[in-house]
């Protein structure tokens, strides 16, 4: 029991992100990310590995996986939930890695952060200007039971990543089955086309 308590405290202390630190930590991580992209041009997987080291503790991948399946998540067995969470995280990371080169010459600046009415969410808005046009990226945080703030969704140009996954996955599960969905998630690989 003591070991468990120690582990809990250790995990929380290692990855804790408090509300007052969100803006500074995120800006620091974004700046480091852009630096990594400049210094590792051409080697996407190396860059991605370093970037995930920065952001893994802040993203709640398990919750994102659960939210992306919506009502279908609870119908899965424990083994299927685990399989899906792993495949989802891998897909999310792969999709991000493949898109890295699109952002290598950009600068992303945090402009504001605000809580929702209930105070249960925190939306951190950042902006990059491309050809004169402001493109907004909103990182959406929630407070977990350990009172840390973690990302559960990201809006890119007004498009919620989780929302688009929900309709994609829901459509597959309504017309086909879980195994097909899993195969589709794992099969996506542009560079094999």
């Amino acid at each position, binding site marked *: 029991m003591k070991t468990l308590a120690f582990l809990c405290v250790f995990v929380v202390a290692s990855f804790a992100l408090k509300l007052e630190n969100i803006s500074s930590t995120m800006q620091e991580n974004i700046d480091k990310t852009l630096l990594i992209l400049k210094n590792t041009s051409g080697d996407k997987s190396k860059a991605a590995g370093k970037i995930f080291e920065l952001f893994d503790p802040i993203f709640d991948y398990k919750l994102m996986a*659960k*939210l992306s399946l*919506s*009502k279908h998540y609870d119908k899965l067995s424990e083994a299927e939930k685990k399989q899906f969470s792993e495949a989802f995280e891998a*897909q999310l990371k792969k*999709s991000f890695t*493949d*898109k890295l*080169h*699109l952002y290598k010459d950009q600068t992303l600046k945090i402009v504001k952060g605000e809580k929702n009415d*209930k105070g*249960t*969410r925190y939306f951190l808005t950042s902006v990059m*200007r491309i*050809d*004169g*046009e*402001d493109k*907004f990226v909103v990182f959406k945080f*929630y407070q977990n*039971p350990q009172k840390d703030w973690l990302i*559960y969704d990201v809006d890119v*140009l*007004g*498009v*919620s990543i*989780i*929302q*688009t996954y*929900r*309709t*994609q*996955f*829901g*459509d*597959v599960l309504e017309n086909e089955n879980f195994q097909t*969905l899993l195969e*589709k*998630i794992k*099969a*996506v*690989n*542009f560079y094999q*086309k």
Partner: protein
Amino acid sequence: MLKIRICLLLFLCLSVSLCDEFDDFEAEFEEFKVNDPLSGYNKMMTSFNIGFYSYVARPAIKSYNFITPQFLRTGVKNIMGNLAMPMRVSSLLLQFKFKEVGIEFKRFGVNMFFGFFGVIDAASNTGIAKYPADFGTALAHWGVGSGFHLVLPILGPSNLRDTLSMPVNWYLVPTGYIEPFYVSLAVNSYVVMNELSFQTDTLDELYYNTPNVYPFLRDAYEQRRIEMSK
């Protein structure tokens, strides 16, 4: 025994709190709905459009990129971006966004005088913003609903409101007045191809690196339009 009871109680509290939390998330994501009575047709047309992109548009754009120097493509893009100012300004005026209208006029002037009639995007280089807007976003700004989602042949995702707005947008850009009409169509097609020549990497990612492409394109389009109309 007491310890077990306390643990069970804590576990129960945590479970109830997590359930509430999950319901909150569900409510948040359920707010967004797309009216899609033509989903069968839309899926079919999306497959056609991806086929058209893969076997016709993409090779044509790649060839165009290969034979056309970057500065020429950028110049065309900048000129057309500047000439689309009347569409942006009129749509911003309809939304009573007067500050943005002023910045757009400033942008046009800077690009005309310091950017050699718009060949160089001097305004962006000096930090003057651009505000994308069209007749569809102006209507949406005042609460006109999107109607049903509609995938157009070759042009891709749209909806009833934006499709009906297209003729208005056409005549809000100078290239819409070129006579005869087929020349205007050819010029505008070239402008679109030139614009897409900068977007092939993004399009490749969207079309080929998405587990279920139609619902993704549909939701991304509708959400983006909502964002643009704010």
